[in-house]
């Protein structure tokens, strides 16, 4: 890569770290370190919430998903605005008004210590692992592209993040998130401009071509529990997932606990309600335009250069034969795409329909050859190819002008760092507040807790980096994180919902939580076809039913 691109990355990393260290000067006590003394304006918190959710997985994986599968993934986010409004009037006032450091601390005040400890433990378990996955996702891609050892890529992302999070606390994290969102948006806009300039057809024709291949089919109204991306799973399952994530996950709750007031905290969540779907739409559309670009410009058969090199060494003849067939199929597909544009100029519906059908057939040929190549990759390397995650990095490296490559890679680092920083910050908060201060040293001084908090952040950073080094070969980068969380998410949401029902008791919450997780586990293993989005609904409803019944039963028992 050109030194100018490296210079952009180095300037970005240096700025984020030094700014984070500068912000540590205002952090002398634990309230400042974990909650910024509840002083941040709504727009900083709002951007921090969005940056935390927009990880490198989103930036790399979702554009790849747009290129291969189209827009339908956006249905996943349909429940987000609904969840934000519900949270604004339910959990946000409860959590912000309680003065608690963590969401789980509130649960002890409402229920009991064991419910708090169990939910906090589940958070540490799931988020501790997912922090590793969030580093691993971009690290694997960076390693494959530059031919680096994975440890170096993990260190490039992990070390600066741990440094500014550990020293600067939540102030550094939130203000870094603001800058990181700016970098991410600038990179996305740059990619869109380059695509518009480089596409050999006007944008309207590009959309018609993409539409002909089914990539602009947004809505799927079928009601099936097995399909993840449908309108109904997005609206119902998505609402429960987002309620769980934004309402009960400390990595998000801590963002809006730093807001000046309940009103500012609500407003910060509304920012996501307004902007998440358009932003996600833009990311998917970038992927779709890259697909159209590669109809006219020969793409590599394998986007992952490391796997390409491995297969080229192990199976040179088989790969060469696939590349020959791929070249022919690519030419035919490009011809079919140009024929769609030509047919549209004639305004003859029959010709247009025929040209679109031919394009679909040629696209099927290309996909078939690519599938054969990916099967070969899996045979040679013994690992899942996940080629989809390399589409945009390869496009950026091969086709973006000087300087913009550095900007895009800085955006990938920014997306990764903003998510990881929030995770480390919240993992440290939960470790110190819900376990160390609660069970080990309740009477220690503020200065002591501040030191322990910094050590805990460092520990979780190290842990995440170690997990990242080994989690590299996990499956789909997008779904692994959500899947892991959804195992507990719905049940924990159920406990928080239960807390809003006046007569419910600690025993109902605790037993309900265990029952919810048991039912989700049974569904996961017993009916693996049911999409993970529904697990949140199942978990939350189980906890509510069991919790209400048990609390009601105990109330009657007490009366007797």
């Amino acid at each position: 890569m050109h030194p100018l691109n490296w210079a952009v990355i180095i300037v970005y990393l240096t700025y984020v770290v030094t700014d984070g260290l500068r912000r540590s000067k205002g952090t002398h006590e634990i309230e400042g370190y974990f909650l910024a003394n509840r002083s941040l304006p709504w727009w900083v918190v709002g951007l921090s919430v969005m940056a935390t959710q927009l990880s490198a997985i989103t930036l790399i994986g979702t554009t790849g998903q747009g290129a291969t599968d189209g827009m339908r993934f956006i249905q996943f986010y349909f429940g987000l605005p609904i969840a934000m409004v519900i949270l604004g009037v339910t959990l946000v006032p409860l959590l912000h008004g309680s003065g608690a450091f963590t969401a789980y601390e509130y649960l002890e005040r409402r229920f009991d210590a064991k419910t708090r400890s169990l939910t906090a433990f589940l958070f540490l378990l799931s988020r501790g692992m997912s922090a590793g996955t969030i580093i691993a996702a971009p690290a694997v891609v960076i390693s494959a592209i530059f031919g680096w050892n994975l440890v170096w890529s993990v260190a490039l992302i992990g070390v600066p993040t741990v440094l500014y999070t550990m020293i600067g606390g939540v102030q550094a994290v939130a203000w870094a998130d603001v800058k990181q969102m700016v970098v991410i948006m600038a990179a996305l806009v740059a990619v869109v401009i380059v695509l518009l300039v480089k596409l050999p057809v006007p944008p309207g024709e590009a959309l018609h071509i993409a539409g002909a291949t089914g990539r602009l089919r947004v809505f799927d109204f079928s009601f099936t529990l097995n399909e993840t991306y449908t309108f109904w799973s997005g609206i119902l399952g998505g609402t429960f997932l987002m309620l769980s994530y934004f309402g009960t996950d400390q990595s998000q709750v801590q963002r809006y606990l730093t807001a000046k007031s309940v009103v500012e905290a609500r407003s910060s969540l509304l920012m996501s309600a307004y902007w998440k779907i358009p932003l996600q739409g833009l990311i998917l559309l970038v992927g779709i335009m890259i697909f159209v670009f590669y109809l006219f410009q020969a793409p590599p058969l394998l986007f992952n250069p490391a796997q390409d090199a491995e297969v080229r060494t192990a199976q040179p003849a088989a790969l060469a034969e696939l590349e020959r067939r791929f070249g022919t199929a690519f030419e035919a597909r490009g011809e079919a795409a140009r024929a769609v544009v030509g047919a549209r100029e004639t305004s003859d519906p029959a010709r247009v329909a025929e040209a679109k059908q031919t394009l679909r057939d040629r696209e099927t040929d290309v996909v078939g050859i690519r599938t054969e190549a990916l099967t070969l990759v899996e045979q040679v390397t013994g690992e899942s190819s996940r080629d989809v995650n390399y589409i945009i990095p390869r496009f950026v490296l091969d086709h973006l002008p000087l300087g913009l490559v550095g900007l895009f890679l800085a955006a990938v680092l920014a997306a990764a760092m903003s998510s990881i920083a929030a995770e480390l910050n919240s993992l440290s908060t939960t470790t110190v507040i819900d376990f160390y201060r609660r069970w080990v040293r309740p009477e220690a001084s503020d200065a002591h807790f501040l030191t322990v908090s910094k050590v805990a952040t460092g520990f979780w950073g190290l842990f995440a980096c170690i997990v990242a080094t080994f989690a590299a070969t996990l499956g789909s980068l997008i779904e692994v994180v959500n899947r892991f969380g959804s195992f507990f998410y719905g049940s924990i949401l159920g406990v928080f919902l239960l807390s809003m029902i006046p007569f419910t008791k600690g025993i109902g919450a605790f037993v309900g939580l265990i029952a919810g997780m048991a039912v989700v586990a049974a569904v996961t293993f017993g009916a693996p076809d049911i999409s993970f989005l529904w697990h949140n609904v199942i978990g939350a409803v189980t906890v509510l039913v069991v919790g209400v019944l048990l609390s009601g039963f105990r109330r009657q028992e007490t009366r007797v």
Partner: protein
Amino acid sequence: MKTGHSFRFNLVRVMLVQVVALLLLWFLQTRYGG
């Protein structure tokens, strides 16, 4: 965007924005996705 308005007001506003977003996506699908 910063607001101290009631739940009903926020609900109506956010839902209106979402309906517009869904209509735009619907337009994208019907105009180009056929």
